């Protein structure tokens, strides 16, 4: 080839941006996932704050009820579809190829496509606020017939449905990519039982996505055609058809949101206890079991919508049984810390936040699985409390554990641990202030999704406390952002080095941030904690010249 000399200018801002927009590198895509989903977290969080302002006292009129309905719909949708699920995908995107010693995902371009579909879908869904007057206001569950053209004529409803279809495509592509990557691209020596636990949970999660998403996508498309082309899938048939299809996806979705977070805990707790994960195989098996049982419980969302009683008893049983593998995980984490050397750094504190709040979410889950109880708490604030204990107390604390743990790897700088502890403490207090009183509100008869309530119901005080708690959470997240701005963006943080935490898995063997090709030489794996050997070898190489002490 003719030697055309390409002028090597210092990359300007524009080409830098173009580089990000066109990248197929799993790390850059991962970073873009993290940044954009964090933005959706903030947006959905602001919606939540407005909701809490409106409910702070009886009869408030911060927003009118039409806007209120849009806000809680878009809060729930945004938190689930645009924050938690893709945030965990983003972490997986960055970490998993590193963890298994690969150079990238199996299909880098499809990886980029998944990401851009997510962004497009996010803009489309939130765009409902701008075009067509109103966003979807039929709740994140979009029950038929409320969500049909007759009762929700606004085009915001159509684009909401369309956006969720796009998200389904995005996460299906992502799931295939994860499975193929993990199946085919592991470093030599990484046998089944040496796959790191976070990667294991992503395998199970990806499997669940592949099984569950098509059902939701089908339901969404049926509803779109019902609304726009007068097909009659839902209008004339069983009112429960939508509910079955929706929950067949959306109950497993709870585990899609929580399993990877559990995987993060299973990575962080051993590292910060200086012990291996207690019962590794049992942890893997319990994840798989959760993945399977997760598909058998969806009717517990329909106990009072008129389903055959015998069927309901079956689903009551499966709902309760799923607590068993979850309990196993809780005990195994505690056993990992038992007689360990527990370092109370921010990532571990976030894990403690997860365990201590998730217990409550788990318990309330079993309780409301009992049909007679469900007949009294279904659709009340008790349920709002329950699922925030699972999704916030679980997933969000897990996500922050992951961020504090992995941001040094991703950026090369350490976050400040003191600010991190403030973040944790305020978020933990704020979280419980916000959501614990909601149990009481539910028992006192407050339904969810109401834009206001009368003063004579006696719901004032728990609501006021919840609002104070919500702003405490917001403040704690602000601290996180300040921490990030100063110590990472402002480069004030300590340099992380390859392995700031004494990690056990391969991502800690490479530089922080890793080079484009991840590993200069593909590592060879000899155990389930390859870094322990690599560290021992490095230490051995150093001390070999001085002593002749053999390894044990």
């Amino acid at each position, binding site marked *: 080839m003719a030697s055309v000399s390409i002028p090597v200018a210092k990359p300007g801002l524009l080409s830098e941006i173009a580089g990000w927009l066109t990248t197929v590198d799993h790390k850059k895509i991962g970073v873009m996932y993290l940044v954009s989903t964090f933005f959706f977290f903030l947006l959905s969080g602001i919606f939540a704050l407005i909701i809490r302002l409106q409910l702070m006292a009886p009869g408030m009129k911060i927003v009118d009820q039409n806007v209120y309905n849009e806000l809680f719909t878009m809060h729930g949708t945004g938190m689930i579809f645009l924050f938690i699920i893709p945030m965990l995908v983003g972490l997986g995107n960055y970490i998993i190829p590193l963890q298994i010693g690969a150079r990238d995902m199996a299909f880098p371009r499809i990886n980029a496509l998944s990401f851009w579909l997510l962004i497009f879908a996010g803009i489309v869904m939130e765009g409902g606020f701008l075009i067509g007057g109103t966003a979807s206001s039929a709740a994140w569950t979009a029950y038929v*017939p*409320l969500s049909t053209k007759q009762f929700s004529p606004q085009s915001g409803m159509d684009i909401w449905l369309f956006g969720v279809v796009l998200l389904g495509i995005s996460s299906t592509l992502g799931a295939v990519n994860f499975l193929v990557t993990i199946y085919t691209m592991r470093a030599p020596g990484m046998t089944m039982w040496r796959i790191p636990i976070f990667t294991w949970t992503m395998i199970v999660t990806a499997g669940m996505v592949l099984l569950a998403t098509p059902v939701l996508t089908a339901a969404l498309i049926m509803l779109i055609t019902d609304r726009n082309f007068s097909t009659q899938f839902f209008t004339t048939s069983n009112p429960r058809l939508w509910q079955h299809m929706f929950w067949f996806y959306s109950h497993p979705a709870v585990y899609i949101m929580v399993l990877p977070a559990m995987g993060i805990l299973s990575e962080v707790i051993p590292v910060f*206890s200086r012990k291996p994960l207690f019962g590794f195989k049992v942890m893997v098996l319990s994840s798989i079991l959760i993945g399977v049982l997760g598909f058998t419980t969806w009717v517990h969302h329909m106990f009072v919508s008129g389903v055959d009683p015998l069927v309901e008893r079956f689903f009551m049983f499966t709902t*309760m*049984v799923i607590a068993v593998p979850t309990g196993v995980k809780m005990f195994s984490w505690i056993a990992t810390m038992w007689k360990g*050397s527990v370092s109370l750094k921010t990532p571990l504190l976030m894990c403690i936040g997860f365990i201590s709040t998730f217990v409550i979410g788990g318990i309330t889950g*079993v309780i409301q699985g*009992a049909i007679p109880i469900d007949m*009294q708490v279904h659709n009340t604030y008790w349920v709002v409390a329950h699922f925030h204990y699972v999704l916030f107390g679980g997933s969000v604390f897990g996500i922050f554990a992951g961020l504090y743990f992995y941001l040094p790897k991703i950026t090369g700088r350490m976050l400040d641990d003191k600010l991190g502890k403030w973040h944790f403490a305020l978020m933990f207090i704020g979280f419980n202030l916000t959501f614990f009183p909601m149990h009481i509100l539910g028992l006192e008869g407050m339904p969810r999704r109401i834009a206001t309530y009368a003063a004579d119901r006696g719901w004032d005080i728990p609501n006021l406390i919840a609002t104070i708690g919500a702003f405490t959470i917001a403040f704690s997240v602000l601290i996180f952002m300040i921490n990030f701005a100063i110590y990472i963006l402002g480069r004030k943080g300590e340099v992380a080095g390859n392995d700031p935490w004494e990690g056990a898995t391969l991502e800690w063997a490479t530089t922080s941030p890793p080079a484009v090709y991840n590993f200069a030489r593909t590592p060879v794996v000899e155990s389930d904690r390859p870094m322990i050997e690599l560290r021992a070898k490095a230490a051995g190489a150093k001390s070999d010249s001085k002593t002749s002490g053999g390894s044990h």
Partner: protein
Amino acid sequence: MLVPPVSQDAQVINNLYLILYVFSAIVFILVEGLLIFSVVKFRRRAANDAPVQVHGHAGLETVWTILPMVLVAVIFLFSVNSMGQLQATGTFNDPLNHVHGVNDQVAIKRVSEAKKVDVVINVTARQWVWQFKYADGFIVTQELVVPENKTVRLDIVSADVIHAWWVPALGGMIYVNPGEMSHVWFNAPAGMYYGQCNVFCGLAHSQMLSNVKVLPQADYDAWVAQQKTK
């Protein structure tokens, strides 16, 4: 339950709740106790702490798999037992089997034979109001008025989307699906019981009240007479 139960059904549910509450407290204290203990007791004291590398313990793992199983089984049995009690009160054949097609004559016959009732009221849920049609032909909204200590049956239909009937003090809730009929039975002492629609049904869902006012018989009769002349 914090809303004091007044009907038999609400009482049964309340009892189950209290039992499960005790189990929950035990699990809660156990897990949080172990968690706090291990974090405090085993926190890192020296930079070079090197704990023994335990990988697992088959016995322990079996124990904490079996124990939750037993607990779950017990909770399940208690729940099934409560469902049996709900049935035994004779309120209805089965706690949840009282939703059927609007024109399902067989089901309507079975429901009307299931239990002797003193008052039947036809209820229509529509965006965003509950309408109560009495045997005497008049209709009231938002607030249902019934006589004290009489068994009341509500035959509820929806005119548009899904709504749910729920008055916490009177017990379990039930969806009201378009095209179907749902039934609720209760028998309550005099008093004012709050309720409102419990499935999100659109714009003014939060205003769709279903309060129940239970009056002594004489007051009730006077109220009915007054409604008829309106």
